[in-house]
């Protein structure tokens, strides 16, 4: 505490270093919740794959062995569930934590009172969400592999596919939450957007089973693109139709870019008002 001016201060962190400090902060807070959180990351897919993959899938496979083009139902289901839960995870991670940072505990404001810029706060937050998505997806894959629901080693590419799927929702949801004083709309968005997408994006059954008139709506679903990409990785068929894979990838990357940009912009507006 010297006066008036001190000289031996560390340099102001670069924007990248700033984002890394935000990431470090979140990781530090997560340590305490790590065990419980990791446990539920195992349990959730295990429950779903048991009930739907083995239980329901057993009936499906017995009734119509060729329904899924030579693969078992659980092999069809697992990557769909993976992408679907990545969507939900991304949605959650970008809602209440953003609310907490900007409105409730105002921890984002505290970060910005340091040399860190608002942009670094937003980027670090997105990086943390990406990390969480990768962690949860990796655990999911491991469980799916144990259940025999994985058909190809190419499945590891399903992790980045699921991360992109989650981020595609996190960016937009985070951008929206950054404009809110209260999370009033959260339940409505979950009920009317996330749940229908989860059910009708080719997660549990191919969208070919939908009436032909509705099918194009499914193409609009970001989750459908995520599901298709993750499934192609899990089944090892990514290269069978590389153009389709590229198209799905492009849609997801574009959504991540637009959502991420909006999120950064809205956080900047809030912190630098």
């Amino acid at each position, binding site marked *: *505490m*010297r*006066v*008036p*001016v*001190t000289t031996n*201060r*560390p*340099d*102001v*962190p670069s924007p990248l*270093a*700033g984002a890394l*400090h935000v990431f*470090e*902060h979140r990781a*530090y*807070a997560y340590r*305490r919740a790590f065990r419980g959180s990791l446990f539920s990351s195992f349990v959730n897919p295990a429950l779903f794959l048991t009930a739907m993959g083995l239980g329901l899938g057993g009936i499906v496979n017995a009734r119509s062995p060729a329904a899924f083009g030579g693969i078992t139902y659980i092999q069809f289901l697992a990557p769909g569930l993976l992408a679907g839960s990545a969507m939900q995870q991304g949605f959650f991670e970008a809602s209440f934590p953003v609310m907490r940072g900007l409105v409730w*505990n*105002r*921890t984002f*404001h*505290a*970060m*910005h*009172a*340091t*040399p*860190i*810029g608002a942009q670094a706060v937003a980027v670090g937050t997105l990086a943390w969400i990406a990390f969480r998505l990768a962690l949860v997806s990796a655990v999911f894959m491991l469980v799916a592999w144990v259940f025999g629901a994985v058909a190809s080693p190419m499945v590891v590419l399903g992790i980045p596919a699921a991360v992109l799927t989650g981020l595609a929702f996190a960016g937009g949801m985070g951008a929206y939450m950054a404009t809110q004083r209260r999370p009033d709309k959260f339940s409505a968005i979950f009920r009317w957007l996330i749940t229908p997408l989860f059910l009708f994006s080719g997660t549990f059954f191919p969208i070919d089973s939908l009436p032909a008139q509705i099918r194009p709506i499914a193409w609009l679903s970001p989750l459908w693109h995520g599901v298709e990409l993750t499934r192609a990785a899990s089944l090892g068929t990514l290269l069978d139709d590389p153009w389709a894979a590229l198209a799905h990838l492009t849609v997801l990357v574009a959504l991540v870019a637009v959502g991420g940009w909006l999120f950064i912009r809205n956080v900047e507006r809030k*912190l*630098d*008002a």
Partner: protein
Amino acid sequence: MPIDPASPSLIHARALTKRFGTFTAVDAVDFDVAPGEAFGFLGPNGAGKTSTMRMIGCTSPSSGGTLTVLGMDPAIQGPEIRSRLGVVPQADTLDEELTVRENLLIYGRYFGLSRSECARRADELLDFAQLTERRDSLVEPLSGGMKRRLTIARSLINEPDMMLLDEPTTGLDPQARHLLWDRLYRLKQRGVTLVLTTHYMDEAEQLCDRLVVMDKARIVAEGSPRSLIDQYSTREVAELRFPVGVQETLDGKLDGLADRIEHLPDRVLLYAEDGEAVAVAVHERGLRPETVLVRRSTLEDVFLRLTGRSLIE
């Protein structure tokens, strides 16, 4: 530490303005803060104090005028300036998912400090904030006063050249406030420049060497607490409280008893050099107030004089 008159101002503001759309939150204010001084913004809620503080803290761009902080331009060197400030916001912005000590450790990292340096400073600051016993407790169950002290400790992790405190004791009980004032006074003794906002006149009198009175986005007076009181008020005040309904029927009966008379909704204030003499004179006129309180003038009276309103409404 004495103030060196030749040294440049830590804050220099001229015609500083902040607008949100068509609303003017800060309207062309001028002020300077010298190294080592405790400088206050006194004013009611909505006077523009927080907006001014946020501009100084480089988290809110100004809409007009000039502002330099620590000799730098906030618009260009925001990060450099912030690296040398200690900010205590109006509402605590602690991370409730972390423990007391972790809040300090993590915060130091944002200033580019090494983990070992953060740990060294955190332990020192825990001691200063009298929180060593609670170091491993989560933040959430702490009392308001403890959270406030932790916020102050956190703001010191970068050994700031200047502290910005936005209503540091609002919402605390008297005991917690006095403990906090004591800590801030120690910082001042060490030569840390304090800039604070408050709507408590006692806080301003306790802590500030010099202050500006803000009202409706403007600065309406400037000086030391003592000089403001001398300039805008009398030495003493007699406060009269009449039975319900009587105050309205006084018309003119108090005239000439004091230098100045203020009629508030619930009491009458008579400003004079000698308050006791005024109280006696009131009785001699046959008036029977329910209670009579003679006290010294405070900044509250200055504010009332300048704006015609009370600080806390």
